[in-house]
């Protein structure tokens, strides 16, 4: 943690107030995880309706319902994390548009409105209108999934949350979790070819996300002392080392291996296993990355 200590100064804090605990706890992890799923399944449905329309046409209603449920989970956990949840309406009345939270709230609300419309249209089997609304829902899903990255970037105190990296990670998390959920939700409705496509998306997004994490792990500390200090929490015998590597293996490395195995053996069961691992692992990865910069003393 103390990267700039000199033997000559041998500086030791001998009296100070105790450090604050975790400010954004596991509730925010669930928030990010559920939002990745809620937006990711929309991306995947949009893709499948173009690449495998016959196979994907029966997924309009289930996908809209899954997205609706997970975006509501995201919103409920966001609300639960507020210390004054009954003042949530202030965001819409006293909006400060330099804040990613305020902008994101409007976008997420609009997204939820579109999802509700999609559920209604799918229920009424108005596929043509559904597909038109899905286009706009997919477009809105991009900033909805990205705004948390903007929020993290606005946290000036947390050096490891950099905007270009976090935005890439948010999109990759949506692709990873979206493809994983669609593999599980697809069941018998999706053809094997469609599932293979989802497997490719899952495997590639896992590979890219893992590459970015490893790049930060190795090269981040060379750029900034605070990043180096934060990385110490996931290196050596750091308090989050085990959880970090557990997340990397479960979310990325094992699913990548499973995808390859499923392709070589044409096994849908292994593909489903990859999907389950990716979903569980993503929550662990997100949690570690959320917590570790909060362990660093600010003063």
């Amino acid at each position, binding site marked *: 943690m103390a*990267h700039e200590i000199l033997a000559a100064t041998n*500086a030791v*804090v001998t009296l100070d*107030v105790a450090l604050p*605990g975790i400010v954004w706890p596991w509730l925010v992890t669930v928030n990010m995880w559920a939002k990745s799923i809620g937006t990711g399944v929309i991306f995947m449905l949009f893709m499948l309706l173009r690449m495998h329309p016959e196979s994907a046409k029966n997924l309009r209603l289930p996908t809209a319902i899954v997205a609706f449920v997970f975006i509501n989970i995201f919103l409920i956990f966001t609300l639960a994390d507020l210390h004054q949840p009954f003042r949530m309406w202030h965001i819409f009345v006293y909006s400060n548009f*330099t*804040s990613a939270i305020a902008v994101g709230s409007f976008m997420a609300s609009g997204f939820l409105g579109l999802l509700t419309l999609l559920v209604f249209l799918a229920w009424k089997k108005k596929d043509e209108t559904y597909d038109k609304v899905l286009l706009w829902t997919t477009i809105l899903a991009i900033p909805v999934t990205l705004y948390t990255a903007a929020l993290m970037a606005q946290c000036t105190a947390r050096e490891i949350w950099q905007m270009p990296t976090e935005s890439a990670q948010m999109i990759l998390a949506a692709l990873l979790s979206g493809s994983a959920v669609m593999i599980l939700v697809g069941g018998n409705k999706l053809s094997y070819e469609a599932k293979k496509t989802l497997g490719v998306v899952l495997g590639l997004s896992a590979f890219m996300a893992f590459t970015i994490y490893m790049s930060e792990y190795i090269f981040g500390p060379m750029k900034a002392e605070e990043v180096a200090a934060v990385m110490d929490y996931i290196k050596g015998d750091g308090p989050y080392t085990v959880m970090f590597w557990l997340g990397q293996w479960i979310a990325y490395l094992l699913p990548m291996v499973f995808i390859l195995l499923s392709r070589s053996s044409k096994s849908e069961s292994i593909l489903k296993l990859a999907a389950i691992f990716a979903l569980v692992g993503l929550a662990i990865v997100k949690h570690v990355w959320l917590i570790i910069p909060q362990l660093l003393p*600010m003063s």
Partner: protein
Amino acid sequence: MQLGFLVDLHLCMGCKGCEIACKVENEVPLSTWRLRVKYVDVGTFPETKRTFTPLRCNHCENAPCERICPVSALHYLDNGIVNIDKERCIGCAGCVMACPYGAIYIDPQTQTADKCTYCAHRVASSMMPACVVACPVQANIFGDLDDPTSNISKYIQVNQSNVQVRKPEKGTNPHHFYVGGGNVNLNPLASHRGEGHNLFGEIKNLPVGGHH
């Protein structure tokens, strides 16, 4: 007018008078602080020295807390003070996460964000902040940074080569300066922080807002 603070660390003797005055003036709840004095011991026995560093909100010109607050509960006053409207705050803690100085906390009584306001209510009545009044050695110098004849401006002019801010690399342009500070005072990564070296001995972390 742009109000600012300067602490002459040569003068500060760590009496914590400012800390107590702030607590009383602003009714700051237990386990939270708007202003605190950090002790850092430097050197190896018998060549040792204790340094004292009062830490409070830096009232940044480019304040991350103001930018991230979704409801403008944190806002600028015309005199440059970054003030907080606790009635408007929703308690999202975005400001706590954004502040690179750890100057913002969640008030366990109101469950809203709170921090030093340079005693904006006293300043509005042409009084000095409580910590300035309480300091027995006038280590706290408060005044208008836009006025070259103010005490703070003169102090900065005289001590030009020795005026520092905390974490200048963050680009926040703090309106809070230190004279006589070193890396050990101003950089949290430049000193060891052993467990138990705090006001409550065995308590390592305080709950945020009294829950979570």
